[in-house]
């Protein structure tokens, strides 16, 4: 099994979720994160004090899938999240050594 973790632009979340659902992904987990990268943030100024907003709002998606689906999932995410503007984000893939569905105790492939 693999865990695909993607950092994307927040307003792309719904597109990505739909694209993944379309290829049969039945579950995923999302967190609000802040990203630092090539895309530069704005400067906020409050009564003359400048704060460089180095961190931009991003959304992190984590999807566990069977290993053979991983590439398709990565592909799908990339396509759905792409705006071709800087800051579109990254996808990383990890090995998962075990997966369990808490409700039933099913493991691995059955747990997803």
């Amino acid at each position, binding site marked *: 099994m693999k865990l695909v973790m993607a950092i994307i632009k927040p307003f792309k979340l719904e597109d990505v979720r739909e694209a993944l659902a379309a290829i049969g992904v039945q579950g995923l987990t999302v967190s609000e994160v802040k990203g630092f990268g090539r895309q530069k943030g704005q400067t906020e100024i*409050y009564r003359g004090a400048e704060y460089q907003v180095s961190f931009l709002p991003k959304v992190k998606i984590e999807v566990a899938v069977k290993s053979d689906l991983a590439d398709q999932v990565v592909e799908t995410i990339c396509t759905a999240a792409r705006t071709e503007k800087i800051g579109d984000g990254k996808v990383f893939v990890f090995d998962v050594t075990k997966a369990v569905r808490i409700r039933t105790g099913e493991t691995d492939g059955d747990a997803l």
Partner: protein
Amino acid sequence: MMSISKRLMSSLPRLSTVAGGAAAGLLAAVPAFAEDAAAPTLNSGDTAWMIVATAFVLMMTIPGLALFYGGMVRKKNVLAIMAQSFAICCFVSVLWMIVGYSLTFGTGNAFIGDFSKAFLSGIGINALSGTIPEVLFLSFQMTFAVITPALITGAFADRMKFSAMLIFSLVWVLVVYIPVAHWVWGGGFLMNEGVLDFAGGTVVHINAGVAGLVAAIVLGKRKGYGTENMAPHNLTLSVVGAALLWVGWFGFNAGSALTAGGLAAMALLVTHIAASAAAVSWTLVEWIFRGKPSVLGIISGAVGGLVAITPAAGFVTPTGALIIGLLAGVACFWGAVWLKHKLGYDDSLDAFGVHGIGGLVGAVLTGVFAAEAIGGKTGLLEGNAGQVVTQVYGVVATVVWCAVATFIILKVLDMIMGIRVSPEQETEGLDLAEHGETIH
């Protein structure tokens, strides 16, 4: 405010001229009583207005100022700063009842009142101050004594101990606020000199601003100032706070007419005009120099305009107010955005930058724009250049006394109990460290 002082202090010589403006309003308001000024009777309209004005000024401190300041601190300190306004309201009100009113408005001498009205003794339900009950006059004044130390808390936000803050506020009201209020409104020497301060530009705002500046310097900068992100955590709170300050300020300024007549109405109008104009000028200046009109900017401008019109509210025309407002917006922008960074003190929420600078501008411009037709006093533009000198005299006396006394109080308190929280507590945030609570 002056017309009442007149009644309270009728032994003082120059009062009839000092109180001229307000008295004119009084005449307009209650013509039926005009012939018989020696035996005023209660006027229910004046009383109705002053009850509400008192409520409005209370609303300025809680929740107005608590919100205005609360939105500007970091999230870990928001309850603490709001608690400071709330606690000052409670503790200072008790102090005011016990000795504050008496020391401010009891006859006394040119520098301080006396203890004749301690615990409000002898002030019955039928005692009058002008055309309103004396208990109402002292309640209205109480709300002024409350907001002044609360304004100071903006300067030392995020680093002062709650215990030290409480004791400082009580001592400061006794040693600085009460004398200065007596000097200007209670028959003291500045009143006798003819210093004009309709609703507290000097007594409240310069006083608080200067005390804040001194406190910011004595306490030192916030940990991480200049390197860590100290951006306001939630300006929606500050917008609401500024709006409630504005609404409440009608009580502050128009209430200082102490009657519900033409003077109060004019004070309301000029207050609104000056606030609007200052918000406009801050916004435009910021747009030009910083590229964007910030929300913190427009509300700060409005507050700066409200501060600046405070001493002038019963003395100037709408056009005077427009100019005072426009100038105040620019001056406070300069104070909060440029001066502070230039001189390098950490006046966290610009108690000095807005209230100090705005108060100074307003005090001096009152001497410039005072119009006989409004408040019976003339200013520079009507040929009375001396009024500007008198105004500066009042400002200097206040600044000197306030700065010296504030410095000594803080230094002594620091020796006795320490006035600043530990670095760990500052990092953790005052909400949790000082009050054991957090925003979840």
